């Protein structure tokens, strides 16, 4: 992690990024390094952008079943600036606070972006997780019904943010699994 030496970042910028994100100095520098490698040469890192395809093909995200949702949630106008990448790494870092992780997990799982994780979102999530061709309708319906019966507190057939937060607070493994290391590769 300490091998990222090629940095042209100003000291004040580094301090500011450290204050605004949950990343350590080394992590920020390593991400800066990776960003510079991918973006077109000659551009200053603050103006360069990466496409979602470039970010999706990072080793950390390449095989993630939700990489397109992650890119959609964290990018602006379908491109990633350096600060977008930092924001993404900050949410997925080890030191991030649980509320931040839960917030972004909710956005990632909300496929149709209507503010709720409803039946069709759940189906899409399950299909992504299983990623096979022989998933029967019955299984999908069964699974979504069970998820809703466990976590839907007000019986409106959808998970609002509070219900999702409540469900994730009960599973302590969520904090440990919702992590991605974007550096050191």
């Amino acid at each position: 992690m300490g091998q990222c030496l090629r940095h042209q970042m100003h000291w004040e910028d580094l301090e500011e990024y450290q204050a605004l994100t949950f990343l350590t100095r080394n992590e920020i520098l390593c991400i800066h390094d990776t960003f510079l490698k991918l973006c077109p040469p000659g551009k200053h890192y603050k103006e360069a952008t990466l496409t979602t395809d470039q970010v999706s093909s990072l080793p950390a995200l390449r095989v993630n079943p939700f990489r397109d949702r992650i890119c959609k949630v964290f990018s602006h106008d379908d491109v990633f600036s350096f600060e977008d990448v930092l924001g993404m790494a900050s949410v997925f870092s080890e030191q991030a606070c649980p509320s931040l992780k839960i917030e972004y997990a909710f956005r990632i799982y909300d496929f149709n972006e209507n503010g709720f994780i409803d039946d069709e979102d759940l189906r899409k999530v399950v299909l992504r997780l299983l990623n096979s061709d022989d998933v029967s309708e019955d299984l999908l319906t069964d699974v979504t019904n069970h998820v809703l019966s466990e976590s839907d507190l007000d019986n409106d057939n959808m998970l609002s943010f509070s219900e999702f937060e409540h469900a994730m607070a009960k599973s302590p493994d969520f904090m440990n699994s919702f992590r991605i290391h974007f550096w050191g590769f």
Partner: protein
Amino acid sequence: MLSDDQLNEIIVEAENVPSWVVLEKTPVNSSFSMVSSISDIDVTDSQSFGNPDDKKSKQLLRFSTSLNESFLQTLHRSPGSVGIDTSHENIQGQKLIASLIPMTSRDRIKAIRSQPRTMEEKRNLKKMVDKEKSKQSHRILEFNCCAQCLNSVSQAYRRSKNSLSELLSYISLWQKTFKVIGGKFGTSVLSYFNFLRWLLKFNIFSFIVTFSFIIIPQFTVPEKNTLQFTGLEFFTGAGYFQDTVMYYGFYTNSTVQHGSSGAPYNMQLAYIFTIGACLIVCFFSLLFSMARYFRNNFINPHIYSRGITKLIFCWDFTVTHERAVKLKQKNLSMEIRENLSEIRQENVKLTLNQQLVHVSAHLAAWVVSTGVAIACCVAVYYLAENNSEFLKNHQNPGAVLLLPFLVSCINLATPRLYSLFRLVERYETPRREVYILLIRNIFLKISIIGILCYYWLNIVAQAGEECWETLIGQEIYRLLLMDFVFSLADSLLGEFLRRLIGMQFPTSLGLQEFDIARNVLELIYAQTLVWIGTFFCPLLPFIQMITLFIMFYVKNISLMMNFQPPSKAWRASQMMTFFIFLLFFPSFTGVLCTLAITIWRLKPSADCGPFRGLPFFIHSIYSWIDTLSKRPGYLWVVWIYQNLIGSVHFFFILTLIVLIITYLYWQITEGRKIMIRLLHEQIINEGKDKMFLIEKLAKLQDMEKRANTSLFTMERRDVEQTSPLHVREHNAAHDLRFRRSVQEENPKV
């Protein structure tokens, strides 16, 4: 519930303009520039999830093409483009700034960091808060000096703490390896290696303390070692090693003093206080870790049901190997199906016959496992008792290894025997199966250690041999070493062979999976031995340090070569809580009992060690208190000893207070459980109210719609042509409403 108004707004807007977006305003800018001015847009920000009262007062907002100097302008990425003026957003922003100003700067930084906003928004937020704060602080002049001083001191402290923690994480052991293991095998296998590293920290600490306070002073007064060195000492621990700092017997009981002006160093007190300090630090460290894990992992167990939600939403994002991900997906699919079939089976009632069969199978398994454990203990005790005669008859110095060899064989074979019970017994949940297996294994291991301690303390210590402490130390050393050798052989040979066999017959066995429970129990067993043995053999933490180090690399290599990722979801944090509890409860408390019996009841050997000649070990403390009571400056220590530590009344009152506090907390917990149940019912009732109101509203709007049909269809055609974004939202909103009315017909309670 905040979704009330949101749903209301969807339904109302479905008639006019069907678009509202929940994410940040910025990506919507370009598409909304095409929307006609008659459309009303409801823009909600993720922050609004926490402020329902704002939404109640909000009207449908007008779309504006002009920017103003509001808070909102600064939050946009491209201020040149069209912005959205929402008075609601302004109110919210002001509220946020107002809440951030009174915080201390550290809390403010933390609060800003945990905002789910983009970097630029956070930066602007920070600037605004700093501006407001500086405006306010201009009026407060009195505290300037002191506050600034304190500020700079705390800032310097924080910066040094930051750099120290970064340095620590930089030299933190095995960071990269952990990432690789986590990437390939997931967090469950990683928890074993984490546990290993945590135990290593204990041993490093114990080693540093004993080295500085006992071993180094002993080096300054060396005695001559007249024994021969042969290579066998590494295995038997006897011979040359007997007269080194390794064992208790070598330590002097005198007061070390260098020169006439040097400070006197009482080896007796140093020995007992050092071991005591190590154990106390371990005790508190274990207690705090256990409490932390308990607090995080046991929230509302009665609501926590099957856990399918957890399977769906807690996908392990740390896994980055393609093959591992595919395997995980396959395993997840299997596990979901198994869980669902278990749930279906749960509702199937078993007949009396089947229940009887199950109960008798459980009973038989418990009887057999307890019987096996007791048989092993008896065998070990019998061998230990007859060991001394056996040794006299066989002059081979390697013969002392027979007892450790037997113990290690028992530890190797019996857990695998217990795993076979799985074929006969049927458990309701796989979690219960894992717990029962763990309980049986830990019972076996603790009883073996227990029987050995009984033998050592009752027979060896009172047999009248010279230097019995050194003998016990040697025994523990041999046990540890044999355990280490067996683990190495198991990892290097056993797992390797298993992989070769598995590859020959690919259909039947396949690659094996890492048995986390068994490996963690082995670590706990070794650590228990180390804690007991530190009193008799102060170099034992050092030996265990080296052992753990080597085991890490061996297990890592074996893992990479011979294993496949685990197929079942392993509830890592719950398991870790249980392991730490096991480490604390039978293991550490057993160690404390053993050492307490040693120190209070046993007579030290007369010729060797720092406590030679005393009637009991504890008399060293008594004589120290006696010498202190003669010095006027230290009478407070004597007072504390006599009235707090040595007095029964104090402990009685303390116990009473602790029991009362425990009872009060228990009652509070019960009250909270009832509260949770009531609140849950309230949520369900509010949900029903909401659906009723939505249905009513839908009916009213239907009537209105029929009245304005023609006007509506024209408007709708207009709006639909302008942006593709609208259509999707419109359909989604319509679906939502349709689902509402369907649900009203089939109420789900």
